[in-house]
């Protein structure tokens, strides 16, 4: 795959939001079955190398999801779980919701990339409900979070009011406990380890101080120079 590194090469010209999506795209390994959550995670598709070998799962009943189509090319019967009109790859398959979640819970999802309201240093994830304010239902989120083989959170480091999303403990109702492996934000790449958060990489325009200030828990630092993305 000769062009596998081209997105990263192009990353220098990116705004922080685009950069974090491009970084998240590198979590997708060849041959994986992957579910991308609604919002930022779905933008990962645009950062995968051309012809990259990956099977995108949409929980409404599709494996082999292709890029989003314009309304003029759209098929009224063909959407992804976020409601976008998508295309399909050669070899795509449609199936019912029972089969779709059997795929998830049965361990056939190698990776899911999800948004978050809050993450805790033990890997707890809260991304479905803000009591008294926002209660639309959990959809397929619990099962994705609890059963994908690897859960990566892709989210801004802080919420709209600048408050940290990476906390010692979640205050909001959990989607799933201890499920998150890695968090990719506009500031950093941070892993959840048995000892809590561990900083792995810093965004190009970020700094260690900025990350520490925006994180609501202790952060273990790598030995030596911190890689940039």
């Amino acid at each position, binding site marked *: 795959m000769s062009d596998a590194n081209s997105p990263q090469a192009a990353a220098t010209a990116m705004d922080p939001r685009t950069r974090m999506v491009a970084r998240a795209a590198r979590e997708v390994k060849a041959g994986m079955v992957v579910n991308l959550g609604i919002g930022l995670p779905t933008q990962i598709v645009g950062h995968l190398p051309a012809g990259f070998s990956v099977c995108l799962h949409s929980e409404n009943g599709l494996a082999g999801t292709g890029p989003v189509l314009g309304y003029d090319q759209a098929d009224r019967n063909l959407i992804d779980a976020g409601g976008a009109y998508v295309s399909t790859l050669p070899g795509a398959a449609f199936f019912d919701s029972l089969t779709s979640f059997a795929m998830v819970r049965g361990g056939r999802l190698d990776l899911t990339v999800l948004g978050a309201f809050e993450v805790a240093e033990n890997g707890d994830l809260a991304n479905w409900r803000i009591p008294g304010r926002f209660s639309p239902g*959990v959809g397929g989120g619990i099962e994705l979070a609890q059963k994908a083989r690897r859960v990566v959170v892709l989210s801004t480091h802080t919420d709209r009011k600048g408050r940290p999303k990476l906390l010692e403990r979640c205050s909001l*109702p*959990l989607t799933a406990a201890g499920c998150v492996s890695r968090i990719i934000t506009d500031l950093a790449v941070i892993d959840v380890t048995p000892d809590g958060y561990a900083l792995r990489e810093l965004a190009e325009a970020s700094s260690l101080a900025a990350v520490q200030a925006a994180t609501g828990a202790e952060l273990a630092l790598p030995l030596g120079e911190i890689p940039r993305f």
Partner: protein
Amino acid sequence: MSLNDKSTSIEEAVARIPDGARVLIGGFGVPGTPFTLIHELVRQGQKNLTLVKNDANETGMGIDHLLASGQVARLITTHIGLNPRAIEMMNAGSLDVEFCGQGILAERLHAGGAGLKGFLTDIGVGTELTRGKPQHELNGETLVLETALRADFALIHADTADRFGNLRYKATARNFNPIMAMAADCVVVEAEHLVELGALASDDVHTPGPFVDHLVELGELSQEYGIVRR
């Protein structure tokens, strides 16, 4: 031997639904939602319904019409985020909403359709999503007992049906339709195309005819079935 013809009129098919019925409704967003059957249910005005549907559609579409007309007492669903009326009614207490994880809803319907009584899962254990649900220990693991979900009626949208009720769905319009078509005592199907026996290859059937009770052929599709431009 031959297989019987289940085609009927939409008025007759929907008139079988009484007040207070529990009704499964296929669809995930627009695709697979039986908009025409829903409109007939609005026209006939059955009251005090319990609906089971993945989502509450959007304003002015699908089951939103049933919410607007006050025909729905209870909704079992996975996500209503695109329907402000549903959220408002829920918050005001005029609509009883039970949330269920999407794949758990699928399995509860499967259990109901397959004549099972419930199943044990680790999904949602230790979160408020399973609060109040009976717990069960198995091999040292704490599990939740999810109960089977079955209904009096199912309203199903298919792309093609033969006269015996063998069904095929298109693309992601399949979603909950095949599962719901197995989980109701009386299954009513609207089909975009009604074909003769033998026109569907036996290997290509998504829902076998024995699950289906009544078939209605759709004429020209209403605007609700079309592309939603946001």
